[in-house]
């Protein structure tokens, strides 16, 4: 069973979001990395400073077999991109909720997260898809 930490928020595109001090840290879920398989590339993110809206492609994660666009689950401004993934994209597999984070977005509106799912809702979504 995929790990779904209770303290995170989730998008229906299988991203996780951790919000602290008005900044959303974004990655892909354990379930998502498991479905993708061995990840060998993570990149194509806009430079920090770039404004993004919900649904904008903000990164590409590629496994040996497939590639997957990562869409911003929030509105805001990119403040950091995980440069470690350039050399070690496999961190997305081995530590999806930790060192495998993909980017940080400073939220335009700290309260505008009501479209995101809590852990329980996300778990149902994963169950329904499998």
């Amino acid at each position, binding site marked *: 069973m995929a790990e779904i930490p209770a303290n995170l928020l989730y998008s229906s595109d299988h991203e996780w979001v951790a919000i602290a001090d008005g900044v959303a840290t974004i990655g892909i879920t354990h379930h998502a990395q498991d479905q993708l398989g*061995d990840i060998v590339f993570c990149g194509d993110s806009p430079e920090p400073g770039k404004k993004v809206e919900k649904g904008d492609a903000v990164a590409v994660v590629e496994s040996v077999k497939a590639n997957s666009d990562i869409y911003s689950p929030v509105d805001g401004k990119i403040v950091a991109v995980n440069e470690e993934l350039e050399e070690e994209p496999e961190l997305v597999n081995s530590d999806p909720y930790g060192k495998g984070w993909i980017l940080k977005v400073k939220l335009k509106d700290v309260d505008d997260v009501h479209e995101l799912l809590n852990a329980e809702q996300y778990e149902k979504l994963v169950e329904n898809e*499998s």
Partner: protein
Amino acid sequence: MAHVDFDALKKTPFFDHHVAAGARVVDFGGWALPVQYEGILAEHACVRENVGLFDVSHMGEFFVEGPGAEAFLQRMTTNDVSALNDGQAQYTVALYEHGGIVDDLLIYRRGEGRYLVCVNAACIDKDWDWFSSHHTGADDCTLENASESWAQLAIQGRTAQALLQKLTAVDLSGVAYYTFVEGALAGVECIIARTGYTGEDGFELFFPREHADAMWTALFGAGEEFGLKPIGLGARDTLRLESKYCLYGNDITDKTTPLEARLAWIVKLDASDFIGRDALIAQNESGIPRRLVGFQLQGRGIARHGYEVVLNGEVIGEVTSGAHSPSLGTSIGLCYLPSGRTKVGTEFEVQVRKNRIPATVVKTPFYKRPY
């Protein structure tokens, strides 16, 4: 992820074993087949460093038998079938009249007038129609499509011979590359061929499908001490690409000739009047317009099948195969470049999403086994 409706798919006799081994099963051209078990990188490494087992039972088997079998196959394929001795295998292609490729094939000569033709899974029906439509009573040979009653396993890797030797009295050290023997292995009469699609040493076993369970159990029993693991289609693709083996449907198609695909070594224009010969002679005379090359991406990213190939700012084609190479740690691929622009070191670009990433023609195979 979408459901796979297994009921609607064809299955090999090893389907239950794949599921039991934890495979992720996908719809591969109408077949329910394992794309991976523990992961493509680990499986790739297992074959390169150790030994792995592939279920390739989806591939097709045609038997061509009779006094006219050799002449029939000479007409249907580009290589010289008459050069085969008993127990030898040959890589070849069948062509359309216009020189495009129907399929790439392996022909095994089992005896005088007795041949096995191994065809790609996705091409079984097409190849059967093609062979049948050119076969008449005057050919003095019979055609049999045994694809549904035969199973096929590939055991690939440096310890494949030692592993299989435990299960057979046949001396496998005497079975050279691209030759085969027929004999009992694990108590099952098999065609034991030293062929493969990985770039490693190894064998392919052909046997009637009713022996599938016994064979799987025997192989994993004997393979335990060698660390034998089942390998999925994902690693099969990265392994074959590193070895620059063409994949039908990607690198070679009905729109490419074997000369363009740099398969002139399996085209014997003087051996017979095979179908498509005139087209190849004409292409030789007018000049081969493009050739298949191997390339390495110089920037970050992965070149994948279908991505645009850009030469001097102009889109001139597509990547025919592309992947992250687990052995090299870089992005490699195959594509067609105009003749005269195919030398090692030639630079071009691949359109990877929004970016044009520099690529360089490199020597192939990308990977050569170190033993």
